[in-house]
């Protein structure tokens, strides 16, 4: 399946100078506006059994050339948030409120028809399963050329030439443009998906779990590619993933979502080195870390709520080790602190100074966990077990 080894660096650059657009902005664009401003976005799904408030009051910004990572467990509204920007939603979903401003242009009120000008041309998506997202009966090059013909109206020959350049940019040899998807390996298919997303030189690329189904080494290759493209093209990226480690390595800012709302948002380094929201703290303590001396993970009890009937007050309170009475009644408002972190939690009231409140980690697991006995004859592994047992609660929280 390997195919020819293609050098990681392609010989050409798509955009000449970082951050400079090759194409004019849409006519109504305000050149001084923030690239993307989302305010109080709400997207509901209508089911026969009730209304699912999948996204319920989400606000965030994306600046030019920035990478924003959206994290959270399955069913927290990550993908729905991103797909709501251009209303790429299933029929039973509806954006019921909020505002989405791209270059200062309001997209939320635009008609389906008017929105089409922005789909793929200004915001494109790298979907998760490259295996399913590519059409098996079309040549890869033609699939990459299609949005160029459809959206930019270029002649076929020119679009094909550009498609081959794009393939080369993402590390696929030009002559493989004539291949069908099944002739490419998993990693190359994902690269082709990226080439497709870049076809119209969009302002924003949304990566929806772009590396989740891939092997470790291929994931590293794709992340490296995205990083290079960001550098080379000044790409603005929204990366949706359940893997916080991927965000730590590739994004500038992280937004942690829980049950359709933002729990915490801020610069990656600040949030990862001192997570404030109990949910962020628990998520981070639950990721395995090769760099850590202790081979332990924290256990997060429970699962995200059913969004047809979300719990009153803070939606995280049933799982929160720090839950107070107020959490069961009042939805916490988002507070932004001087270090750029925004957090929605009653532990951090608007009047407070935002000092971090570490949560006790109640239960840990892993071969170093207290109570885990290793095999007879397996030496070495349990040596530090006692040390871990003696460790004060909360030490796990980064």
């Amino acid at each position, binding site marked *: 399946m*390997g195919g020819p080894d293609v050098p990681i*660096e392609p010989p050409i650059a798509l955009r000449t100078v970082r951050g400079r657009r090759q194409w004019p902005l849409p006519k109504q664009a305000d050149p001084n506006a923030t690239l993307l401003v989302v305010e109080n976005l709400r997207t509901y799904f209508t089911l026969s059994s009730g209304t699912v408030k999948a996204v319920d009051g989400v606000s965030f910004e994306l600046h030019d050339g920035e990478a924003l990572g959206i994290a959270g467990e399955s069913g927290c509204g990550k993908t729905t948030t991103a797909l709501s920007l251009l209303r790429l939603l299933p029929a039973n979903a509806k954006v019921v409120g909020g505002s989405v401003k791209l270059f200062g242009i309001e997209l939320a009120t635009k008609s389906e028809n008017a929105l089409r000008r922005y789909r793929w041309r200004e915001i494109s998506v790298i979907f998760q399963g490259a295996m399913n997202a590519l059409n098996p009966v079309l040549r890869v090059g033609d699939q990459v050329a299609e949005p160029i013909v459809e959206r*930019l109206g270029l002649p076929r020959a020119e679009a094909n030439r550009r498609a081959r350049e794009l393939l080369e940019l993402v590390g696929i040899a030009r002559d493989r443009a004539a291949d069908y998807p099944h002739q490419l390996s*998993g990693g190359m298919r994902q690269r082709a998906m990226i080439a497709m997303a870049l076809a119209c030189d969009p302002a924003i690329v949304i990566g929806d779990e772009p590396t989740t189904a891939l092997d470790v*080494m291929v994931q590293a290759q794709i992340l490296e590619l995205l990083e290079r493209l960001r550098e080379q093209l000044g790409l603005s990226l929204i990366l949706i993933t359940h893997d916080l480690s991927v965000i730590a390595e590739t994004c500038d800012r992280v937004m942690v979502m829980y049950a359709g709302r933002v729990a915490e948002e801020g610069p*990656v380094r600040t949030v990862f080195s001192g997570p404030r929201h109990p949910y962020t703290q628990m998520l981070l303590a639950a990721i395995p870390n090769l760099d850590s001396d202790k081979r332990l993970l924290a256990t997060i009890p429970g699962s995200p709520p059913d969004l047809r009937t979300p719990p009153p007050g803070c939606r995280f309170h049933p799982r929160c080790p720090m839950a107070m009475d107020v959490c069961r009644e009042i939805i916490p408002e988002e507070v932004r602190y001087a270090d750029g972190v925004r957090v929605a939690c009653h532990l951090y009231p608007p009047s407070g100074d935002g000092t971090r409140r570490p949560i006790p980690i109640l239960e840990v697991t892993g071969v170093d966990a207290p109570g*885990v006995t290793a*095999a*007879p*004859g397996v030496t070495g592994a349990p040596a530090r077990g006692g040390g871990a047992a003696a460790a004060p609660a909360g030490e796990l929280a980064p």
Partner: protein
Amino acid sequence: MNEELVRLEDLQVHFPIRGSFADAILRRRHGAVRAVDGIDLAIRRGEVLGLVGESGSGKTTTGRVIVKLTRPTGGRLLLDGQDVTAVWGGPALRDYRRRVQLIFQDPYETLNPKQTIHDFVAEPLEVQRIVPLASARERRVLEALEAAGLRPASDFAFRYPHELSGGQRQRVVIAGALVLGPELVVADEPVSMLDVSIRTEILKLMLDLRTEHGLTYLFITHDLSVAWVIADRIAVMYLGRILEIGLAEDVIRRPGNPYTQALVSVMPSPEPPEIGHRAKRQILVGETPSAAAIPTGCRFHPRCPWAARAGILERCRTAEPPLFDMGNGHAAACWLAEGGRPLPVLEATPAVVPQTAGVTGGAGPTPLPAANR
């Protein structure tokens, strides 16, 4: 009682590549996919052995041989010191299955949507006919469900899979593996489909069960960091061979094989990188070659970062390195590890230098005429 519960000796699984009908008549040979290509491995009683590899490494095939779903084409399989390679039916196989059980990856596909939880867990007991009394069977099923953390078990027993969450389904699958009281459980990517929160729960359950029931696990995963959390020892597979094996700490902290070294270096870490930290990564070029065309010599040599840097040893191209002992039960299959030498520290991969416009002289792709926008 043998300290080694399972032992593989020079195990081979070669799948013939089937040609056309004409080829078959003319007896033209087509070669084989060498999924598992001669591995020696011992699983010690009571340990969690992490078998780590990328797709195409042969890790799942190895697991399937151990649970007797795939026939090896060569080598031996020993359980508790007894050669069971030829056991392919009858009471001996039934006895083997009672002692060795399997947990599959996807709890959504493992469970039959039309079967209750109780029936799923009870099925092995019925097949085995070891508990003839229905009431006793019932009790065994409830015990297994309780042990898998589905409490109270009687609440869960008569539900259908669609009524359960992903974590609960995986617990049901684990209960099904437990009900016969096995000694070895082969778990093939048991947590890779699960969310972080559920993943920790299941790992914890597996470790608790080891303590309570004295289980031994072969934990098959592509994720080195999960193996780091749960495994006592880690074996790294590549293209049908074990390239490295040892205590988890030795393999992760002092890898003796360049492939392991590269795998460790690219594992994303939840700690945001310092400036220049990313240069530590060694990203291998290309993907695992096909197991139908395994490179000569060391099968990793075409992708080995040492080949790109220091020039490759002639030996790497011509001779397959055996597992060299590096002390403390740690062994690595690399000519650089001969005589137990540690792998020299490889300085950072030169970070991929983006070719900027300045370098290429602005010869980017042809700009589209603005009028087309």
